[in-house]
């Protein structure tokens, strides 16, 4: 059966900073270069490995391992906790390098970006030259220890796939001429977006390899495998047609905290919850949003889980209003079991503007004005300069994390 592939020139370039957090730590500290190092959420044995260095990966250490598992594989591994300002700095500098080469740069995460050269009409050879020049500029302008893997293809999906073919420091092109040969070397879970559950679903329909997937008809994928429009998207995506150029709007803000020592004490849990709400509220207000919905999720020591949402009639803007709603949900769960993880998020967002409808009750305006004044003080003198009594002795808990967000 002949497969109709996208015959267009490759115009999308996906760039991925190799072992991002670990490489940046090695860039900062030259004494750690060439040594196995992991950046973990916590340096305690149960801390989750977020980024192993290239040297640590050679010992079999992977993202998601616990620190104690990493140390079993490599007793000399260096364990560092994240230092987000460094990663934000490297991200910003990399974006400057990308923007010098391409007018349309789309940051995908802190360590990935997509460069769209469609309007420039470059040939594949020219794109390869640009990629080599970007690699060189990153070493010169951002850091000599940093390497990136680059993938070039006619659509975003294949460009991302190409960027993962040879790590670290790879440069690969996927086009209509080599797509079949490239997919023939891969497994289904090597495709970005295909996890073990999708793999099982594909297997159940007689699709065992990426080539089987590519050769599957649109009806099979849409009506039988995915039973939705998602099947059509995969049909197009695999053939190199662009269907992922969609911007998603922000729908929620959330914070979570894994509690080192499980807690059932209502006062201590309230303190943690307040700090989570403060961090979430600061981000909500920074984005000029208010929220109507609050969602709270708790994981318990006995491996059970509870979560609940509540929608409020009046929009929540201040930390206090977010906290009161979240605390109400927490109280409804009871305090009989020890909690290991607390997650709060707010949703049903609306943009806040000065032309908002005036409230009948002026206490809401006072609350908003007070919150904005407190935010200004904390912006000027540092986070938590002014804080409620509940947050005393909480400075070292719930550290800053690198959120997945638009870094534009």
């Amino acid at each position, binding site marked *: 059966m002949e497969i109709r592939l996208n015959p267009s020139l490759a115009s999308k370039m996906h760039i991925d900073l190799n072992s991002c957090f670990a490489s940046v730590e090695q860039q900062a*500290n030259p004494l750690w270069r060439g040594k196995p190092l992991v950046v973990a959420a916590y340096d305690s044995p149960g801390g989750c490995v977020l980024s192993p260095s290239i040297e640590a990966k050679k010992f079999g250490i992977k993202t998601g391992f616990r620190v104690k598992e990493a140390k079993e594989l490599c007793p000399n591994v260096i364990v560092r906790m994240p230092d987000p*300002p460094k990663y934000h700095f490297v991200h910003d500098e990399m974006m400057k390098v990308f923007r010098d080469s391409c007018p349309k740069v789309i940051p995908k995460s802190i360590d990935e970006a997509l460069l769209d050269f469609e309007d420039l009409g470059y040939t594949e050879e020219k794109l390869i030259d640009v990629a080599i020049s970007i690699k060189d500029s990153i070493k010169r302008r951002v850091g000599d220890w940093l390497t990136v893997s680059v993938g070039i293809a006619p659509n975003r999906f294949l460009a991302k796939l190409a960027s993962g073919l040879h790590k670290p420091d790879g440069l690969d092109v996927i086009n209509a001429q080599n797509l079949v040969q490239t997919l023939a070397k891969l497994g289904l879970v090597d495709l970005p977006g295909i996890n073990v559950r999708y793999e099982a679903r594909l297997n159940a329909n007689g699709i065992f390899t990426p080539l089987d997937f590519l050769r599957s008809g649109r009806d099979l994928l849409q009506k039988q495998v995915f039973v939705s429009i998602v099947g059509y998207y995969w049909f197009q995506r695999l053939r190199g047609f662009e269907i992922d150029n969609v911007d998603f709007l922000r729908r929620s803000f959330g914070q979570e905290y894994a509690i080192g020592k499980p807690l059932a004490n209502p006062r201590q849990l309230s303190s943690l919850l307040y700090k989570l709400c403060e961090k979430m509220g600061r981000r909500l207000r920074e984005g000029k949003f208010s929220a109507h919905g609050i969602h709270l999720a708790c994981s318990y020591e006995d491996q059970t889980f509870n979560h609940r949402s509540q929608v409020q009639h009046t929009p929540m803007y201040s930390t206090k209003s977010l906290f009161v709603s979240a605390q109400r949900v927490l109280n409804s769960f009871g305090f009989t079991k020890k909690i290991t993880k607390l997650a709060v998020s707010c949703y049903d967002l609306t943009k806040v503007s000065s032309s908002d409808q005036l409230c009948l009750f002026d206490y809401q305006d006072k609350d908003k004005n007070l919150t904005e004044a407190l935010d200004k003080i904390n912006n000027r003198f540092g986070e938590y300069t002014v804080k409620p009594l509940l947050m005393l002795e909480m400075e070292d808990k719930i550290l800053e994390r690198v959120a997945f967000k638009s870094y534009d």
Partner: protein
Amino acid sequence: MFEKLSEKIPVFSFYNPKASPPAGGSQPLYLKWQGNLLTVTKVGLHHTIHEGRSLIHVFCVTAGELFFKLHFDTTALTWTVKEISDGNPT
């Protein structure tokens, strides 16, 4: 060895108007640590952070056999060592 601390130290810095980042601009050349004058051999990373409205320049450098994370507070004009390491895990 890896240690977090907050100790103000003497630092000699140099400004080169012709150099371009990351190697150029203003950067520490020597620092005095535990009575020894150490030459900064490499600036691994230089970035900035804000503590309230104070702009802090963070220099991650090697000097002698050690790594130092230095904070230069542009409001107070002070140099502070925030981290020190000999490159080994413990």
